[in-house]
């Protein structure tokens, strides 16, 4: 009895190790980019003003992609973005600020069209929270923007060699489809919603019929001796008509940053591949 128990314990230890060994033969690295964006933003929000505002946008974008260990045609992506803008009206005597935080996570299916071109299609969950702040307004100074839901996403990866430089071009488009959004009614104050508690109809389902969003990102990755630069252009566009309130926000930014590709180990499941030397593990 004691002998059988010992074998059982041994098997329970050895079998998972075998499984890990089998999995460990293939390591999928993580590709992550830290990017700094600068560009222009134009905003028109009829709750705040009938005039459009334009100004400078500064931001940070983190983009991470990782191949699935379970399926070689699947990859995961995380996108995190912070944007801050200062804008002014055409007359130059009105100021508006905006701040947005975007996070999307999801998966893509990958098609290898030929050795140079891959096309990815999938979906991302997440959204944007933030708001607009018009300094001159008294009881309607701000408009919150909360758009959460599911986006369709497509990526094209193209690699080309120019001289000694293997350059990777990347184009991504995200199209939010259905989700939830927030909007006060036409002449409703935030005081009525949050202090008096009349929040009927302010949280509602969004789809392109009332809220159309589009994110485009085009970039090129250029490797140098010790760093891979990624530079490109990004456009985010939002147009909504909810409760007869209209919003149009357009942001065009150039970005530059660096790309890292590597293996990450952490937690109890960490795997140390052969030939890898860690200063800690």
């Amino acid at each position, binding site marked *: 009895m004691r002998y059988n128990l010992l074998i059982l314990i041994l098997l329970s230890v050895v079998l998972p190790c075998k499984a890990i060994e089998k999995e460990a033969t293939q390591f999928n690295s993580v590709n992550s980019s830290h990017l700094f964006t600068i560009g222009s933003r*134009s905003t*028109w929000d009829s709750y705040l*003003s*009938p*005039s*459009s505002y*334009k100004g400078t946008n500064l931001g940070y974008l983190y983009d991470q992609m990782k191949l699935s260990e379970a399926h070689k045609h699947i990859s995961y992506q995380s996108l995190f973005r912070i944007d801050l803008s200062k804008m002014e*009206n*055409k*007359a*130059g*005597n*009105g100021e508006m600020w905006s701040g947005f935080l975007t996070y999307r996570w999801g998966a893509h299916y990958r098609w290898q*069209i*030929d050795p*140079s*071109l891959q096309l990815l299609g999938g979906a991302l969950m997440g959204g944007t929270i933030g708001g607009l702040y*018009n300094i*001159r*307004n*008294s*009881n*309607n*100074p701000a408009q919150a923007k909360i758009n959460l839901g599911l986006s369709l996403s497509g990526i*094209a990866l*193209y690699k*080309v060699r120019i001289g000694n430089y293997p350059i990777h071009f990347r*184009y991504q*488009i995200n199209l939010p489809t259905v989700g939830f959004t927030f909007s006060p*009614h*036409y*002449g*409703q*104050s935030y*005081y*009525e919603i949050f*202090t*008096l508690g*009349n929040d009927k109809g302010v949280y509602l389902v969004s789809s392109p019929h009332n809220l159309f969003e*589009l994110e*485009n990102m*085009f970039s090129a990755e250029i490797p140098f001796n010790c760093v891979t630069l990624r530079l490109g*252009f990004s*456009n985010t*566009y939002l147009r909504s008509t909810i*409760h*007869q309130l209209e919003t*149009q926000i*357009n942001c*065009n930014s150039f970005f530059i940053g660096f790309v890292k590709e590597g293996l990450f180990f952490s937690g109890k499941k960490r795997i140390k591949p052969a030939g890898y030397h860690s200063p800690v593990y």
Partner: protein
Amino acid sequence: MKAFRFNHLITLLVLVLSLCSCDKEDEFNNTPSGNMEALWQIIDEHYCFLDAKKINWDSVHTAFMPRVKNVTSQEALLHLMDEMLDILQDGHVNVAASFNIARYWEWFEAYPENFDEKIQKNYLKTDYYISGGIKYTILDDNIGYIYYSSFQDQTGEFNMDHILYRLALCRGIIVDIRNNGGGELTNVQNIAASFTDSKVLTGYVSHKTGKGHSDFSEPYAKYLYPRSSGTYNYYKQVVVLTNRNCYSAANEFVNTMMQLPNVTIMGDQTGGGSGFPFSSELPNGWTVRFSSSLSLSPEMKQIEYGINPDVRVSMTKEDEEKGLDTIIETARDSIHNHYLH
């Protein structure tokens, strides 16, 4: 083949980016007529009292737009806008330029002031207390006197605790809000809640739901809630003093207080201003303020043009010459008489 595909990708990219890079263009130009049209449209689509005040806003357009061609200066343009907006008879409607503010102040300028700060000093004297935005003292006949000049001045539960602790043994309290032009509605709740021990319906709010003059939401009930236990409340006689210069949040305070059984409103009619003002702007950057949603009494009646007091009292010349405030004196008598009957 590769180049062909790559070209297709670039074409697609340019197409998508050009589709979404179009910015919204402003509807009106920064010209006298563009600014005037913009102002007319803001009121047409957003102002909440056009139907209630039976104003034919289209005829206003017909009357005023031809006059814009005679405008030759910024001041003349603001003057014309002022004239057009006066039709609304609303103190919440303004156009603010850098050199002047177009305004309608007839709701108090056309009436007796019924308040004299110099005479008020005879009651406050010099040793009065101040908590938050409230000045307070105990009068010689053991009546508490509170003066609150602006609902912009933050006054919270903590301030009311201190005030009512000191006035707890008074026979009654006079809450004087004469010349209070309004401010924040949260202060209305903070102060009024000290005088009730139960939830009270104080009125309704209704906001515009669209551009049409009669597009309004279902009225939404507003309540005054008693303060949490452990705080100082006052349930004896309270007299609220009013004049024509009580506007906006002060008007709402009177509407709230008059729903309480132990409260008497005394003085002159309030100035009104039941609209909740929003801001907008013209193409030249001038700020426009207008009433966007309205507040109704518990009987669902308009209080835009003011609230009548329970006891109408005006300051008399004779009393003023003696340094007496007729309205304060009548309020004192009213509190004392309450205990006699």
